[in-house]
């Protein structure tokens, strides 16, 4: 059984799944940047008391699962989402969806994901892909980060759907429950909702570790890493920061470029010139993050590594924080048409 489904590549897995599933339901307006922006995907958080793979827990994007839920909700499309205790039940429901002609989004872990290169297979459980059919024992898989559609045996799929550890997917699957037409008016409203929520998340979230304040906090911490952790561990920490920022899924510059692209698309809906200017600010911030990554690479490759080099690294983050703060404040000032 193979559903009529078109594989599309995206930068980020969840954006890609959201865009593709919506398009399958006839909603063609939602591009990857729109899904990301409507889902208020841009974020920053550094959780100092948590470790991921023995390094710092840093994220440049919002919590997994939210982009799909928020985007569908903003467009008034009901979502079906299920987790399972039993593997057999998880496969049964998946097969029922496919039989009903519904491609299904699945949350999976990447450690046992056979088509991924070995270098990428850490125990990371918040990857997303679409299952769109089954031929003999092979499930047909559309993984948004891959150029081509691929496949997994039923054992392989079960294994990644029931990966364990942080964010364990527990077989989770999700899809838009109904086919509903989406008007441009709805898209416009959704864009505004997404932007407003993102302003709140970045500027007004309480506490020092998230949003703009989180970027500054991380900058400050980086300045202390060399003394506190020693040059080698400090280098590993920076490498982890760069991976969270640039590895598959971010579209480059810690999602800042996708967000800039989103604001350009928002402009086509509203023709508010400020949106173009603010988009440029996010491009600039993304470029700063890229420069920070180059600086970090100098440190973890051992080319440079003095305290002054760490301070330069901090300065990059302070600069990015300033630019993004200004950009979100400007977004907050926009006068939207009634």
């Amino acid at each position: 059984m193979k559903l009529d489904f078109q594989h599309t590549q995206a930068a980020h897995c969840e954006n890609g799944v959201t865009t593709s599933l919506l398009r399958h339901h006839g909603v063609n307006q939602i591009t990857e940047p729109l899904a990301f922006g409507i889902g208020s995907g841009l974020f920053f958080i550094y959780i100092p008391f948590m470790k991921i793979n023995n390094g710092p827990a840093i994220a440049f994007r919002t919590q997994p699962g939210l982009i799909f839920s928020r985007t569908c909700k903003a467009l008034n499309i009901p979502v079906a989402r299920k987790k399972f205790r039993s593997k057999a039940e998880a496969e049964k429901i998946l097969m029922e969806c496919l039989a009903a002609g519904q491609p299904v989004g699945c949350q999976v872990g990447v450690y046992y994901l056979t088509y991924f290169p070995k270098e990428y297979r850490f125990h990371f459980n918040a990857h997303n892909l679409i299952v769109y059919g089954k031929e003999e024992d092979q499930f047909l898989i559309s993984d948004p980060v891959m150029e081509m559609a691929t496949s997994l045996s039923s054992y392989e799929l079960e294994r990644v759907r029931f990966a364990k550890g942080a964010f364990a997917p527990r077989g989770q699957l999700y899809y838009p429950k109904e086919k509903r037409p989406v008007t441009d008016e709805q898209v416009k409203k959704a864009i505004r909702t997404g932007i407003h929520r993102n302003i709140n998340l970045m500027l007004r979230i309480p506490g020092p570790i998230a949003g703009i304040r989180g970027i500054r906090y991380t900058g400050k911490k980086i300045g202390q890493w060399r003394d506190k952790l020693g040059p080698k561990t400090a280098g590993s920490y920076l490498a982890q920061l760069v991976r969270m920022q640039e590895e598959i899924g971010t579209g480059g510059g810690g999602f800042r470029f996708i967000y800039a692209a989103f604001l350009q698309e928002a402009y086509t809906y509203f023709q508010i010139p400020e949106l173009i200017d603010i988009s440029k600010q996010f491009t600039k911030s993304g470029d700063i993050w890229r420069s920070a990554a180059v600086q970090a690479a100098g440190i973890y490759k051992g080319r440079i590594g003095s305290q002054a080099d760490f301070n330069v690294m901090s300065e990059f983050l302070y600069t990015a924080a300033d630019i993004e703060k200004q950009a979100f404040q400007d977004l907050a000032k926009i006068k939207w048409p009634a």
Partner: protein
Amino acid sequence: MKKDELPQDLGALGKITGEVCYVTDESGNYITQLSNGWEVKSSALEVAWKDVEQRIMDAQQKVLNKEASPILFFMELRVMDIPIVSAYTGFWKWQVKKHLKYDAFQKLSESRLAKYAELFEVSVDELKTMKVHEA
């Protein structure tokens, strides 16, 4: 990032698939382009794996010194930590912690050893001797 600045440094993922990146064209409009990788981030990934290798070697030495059980070695080899091992095997975290000790490991029942061996994809003998034949 401008489109002609997009790095194309072939990395581990680039051999399998290009990655979508968002870049600006001549007139400043965003377009997507595929990148084969970026040296800055492939070296970051390399650092991560070097750290993993170091942890595996340290674990191996600890086991040889009888300061830890082979479970520590395999846990590091499979890039896992105590919560992950606990979640896959069904043992409590405090049990896993106990089994990481050399002496406690010697007293483990065959069925418990088999559980660990299954998770680490080795035989019980290999588990005990730390000998692995990776493909």
